[in-house]
C-alpha cells in the first residue's frame, strides 16, 4: 500500500488529479464529506489530506511514503527526505519586504518578523548581517507598520497584500513551488511505484508546456 500525503486545499486537488493520471485513482476522494483518509485497496494506494505545512513531517516520519510540499516548508524544516520533482505548481517567492522608503541602517541589529525563522536566519547569515528574529504566526505584514520589526521575510504571491499595507519587496530570497517528496526508506522498498508516479508527472508537465 502506497501512502500519499496531500496538502489540503486547491493545490492538493490539482495534485491528486496528477496522481490519478499516473494510474493511482481513488474515486472516493471526490465524495463531498469530511473524511481525511481515502483508500483504493485494489490499486494499493491510500491518500490523506493534511495541513500543507505538515506534509513533510508525515513523509519524513514514514506515515506517508510520498507527498507534496511547498519548497518554503522544505527550506524551513529541512526534513531528511528525497525531493524528487518540482511540480511548478503554487509558484510564489520567499522575499524580504519593508515599508516603502526603507533603508537598512547597518549600525543597528535588523529586526526581522517572520514565520520562517530558519530561512531568514540562513539568508542573513549568508550576508553576515546581525539580526533579531521575531517569530510570528500570521499577519506578518503589520509588524513593520507597528514598528515591531524593520523588515519581514514572508511568501509573496502577487504582492497585493504588501501594496495595500504600504510595503514593498526589497529582495527575493528564493523562488517557491510545490515539490514531490518521498521518504528515503520507502523509496528503497516501494521504488517501482514511486518511480512510476515520478515518470508520469514528468510526462504530464512536459505535455502541459
Amino acid at each position, binding site marked *: 500500500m502506497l501512502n500519499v500525503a496531500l496538502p489540503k486545499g486547491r493545490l492538493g486537488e490539482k495534485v491528486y488529479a496528477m496522481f490519478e493520471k499516473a494510474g493511482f485513482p481513488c474515486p472516493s476522494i471526490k465524495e463531498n464529506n469530511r473524511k481525511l483518509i481515502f483508500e483504493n485497496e485494489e490499486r494499493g494506494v491510500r491518500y490523506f489530506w493534511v495541513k500543507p505545512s505538515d506534509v513533510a*513531517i508525515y513523509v*519524513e*516520519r*514514514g*506515515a506517508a511514503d510520498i507527498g507534496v510540499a511547498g519548497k518554503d516548508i522544505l527550506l524551513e*524544516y529541512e526534513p*531528511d*527526505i*528525497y*525531493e*524528487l*520533482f*518540482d511540480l511548478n505548481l503554487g509558484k510564489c517567492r520567499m522575499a524580504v519586504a519593508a515599508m516603502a522608503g526603507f533603508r537598512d541602517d547597518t549600525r543597528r541589529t535588523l529586526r526581522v518578523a517572520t514565520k520562517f525563522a530558519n530561512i531568514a536566519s540562513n539568508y542573513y547569515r549568508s550576508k553576515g548581517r546581525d539580526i533579531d528574529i521575531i517569530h510570528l504566526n500570521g499577519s506578518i505584514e503589520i509588524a513593520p507598520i507597528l514598528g515591531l520589526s524593520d523588515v519581514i521575510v514572508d511568501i509573496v504571491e502577487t504582492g497585493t497584500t504588501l501594496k495595500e499595507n504600504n510595503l514593498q519587496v526589497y529582495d527575493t530570497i528564493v523562488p517557491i513551488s510545490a515539490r514531490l517528496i518521498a*521518504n*528515503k*526508506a*520507502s523509496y*528503497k*522498498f516501494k521504488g517501482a511505484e514511486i518511480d512510476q508516479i515520478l515518470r508520469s508527472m514528468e510526462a504530464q508537465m512536459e505535455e502541459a508546456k
Partner: protein
Amino acid sequence: MQTSCERVAQSLRTLYSRYGYRHYKMSKFEEYDLYAKNKDFLVSDNVITFTDLGGKLMALKPDVTLSIVKNSKELPGVQKLYYNENVYRVTKGAHGFREIQQMGLECLGTVDSYCISEVLELAAQSLRSISDETILDISHLGLLAELMNSIGIPADQKGTLVKFISEKNIHELTALCQNAAISPENTALLRELVCTGGAPAQVLPKLESLLAGKVSPTTLAQFTDVIQSLADSDMAQMLRIDFSVVDDIHYYNGFVFKGFVNGLPGSVLSGGQYDKLMKKMKRTDKAIGFAVYMDMLERLEAPGEEWDVDVVLLYDNTTPLPSLRQQVNALTTAGNRVTVQQTIPTDLRYKEIKNLTKGEPTNA
C-alpha cells in the same frame, strides 16, 4: 520476553566478536572541548554539559566515534572495536534531549580493501539480524569528490551540490550546474549518476563507463573490487549502489553507507570511512566504522499482547497461605502468568479470575 532491541544486541555482540572485534566500554562523560572542536561531525550541536569537581566543562557523550578516536592509541596494524553505548542528543524536531542506545564498530589503523569489505559485510549482516527485508545502500565520497573536481564544480558550491545529490534533487542540481557554467554533458553525467542506483550487477558496468576518464582509475577499481567481493557473497541481494548516500565531506572520504529496514522510516544503520576526521584529530592512521540505531528497533516490535496476565488469583485473610502458594505454583508451572491480588486491579487485562476468598471478588 526479549524485546527486538535486546535480541538484536545479543546477536550483534556475537557477530562482532566472531570477527575479532573487542568490546570497548567507555565513560558516559567526555570533555566538552572534543565536541566544540568537531561540531560538524555531530548530528546536533546541542550537548548536555556540566562542570565537574575540578572546574572542567564536561559533556554527556552525544557521539561514540569521536571518543573512540580520541581515547584509542595509534598502534601498528588494525584495531577492531565494537561498542554498545547510550548517547545523549537532540533528535531532529524533538524539543528535548533523548538517551539513545547505539551499537556499532570501528576499525582503525591500516585500513585496506579487506577491512572495508569486512566492515561492509558486518553492516549487511547486522541488518540481516534485524530483519529479512533490508537494504544496504553504498556510495563513495572519494569518487564523488574526484568527479566534482574534474567537471569543475566551484569549491563554494560543492556542499550545496552534495546536498542536492543526497535529496535526489535533479531539478536544483541542474540549475546549480547551469549557474556554475558546467557543460551540458557534465551536467547530464551528474544527473545520470544520481539516477543510477540499484543492484551492483546492473550498476557497476554502467558506473565504469560513466566515470571513466573523470575519476582516478585506482579509486574506481577499489570501489568496484570491494563491491564485487560482496556481490559474490550471500549478501548480494541486499546491496544497492546509490550515490545519494552522502555524509559530511569534511570528515568522511571513501565508502559511505546506510542501512534500511522495511517498516522503519529512516536509516537504521549508518557508517563510512572517516580518514579526514582522523587527520583532524592529528592521527596518521585510517578508519571505517558504523553505528546501528537501536532505539529505532522498538518500532519493529509486534503489537503488544492482548492480556497482561492469564490469571488474577484473589485471596483474603481467610485464605490459608499453603493453599495460596500451592495454587500459584500449579498455575505458573502450567505456563500461566499469574498475579496474586486482594482486589481486582482496574487497569489490568486478564483472561480469568480465580477466587480463593470466601466472598465475592471486589474491584480495586
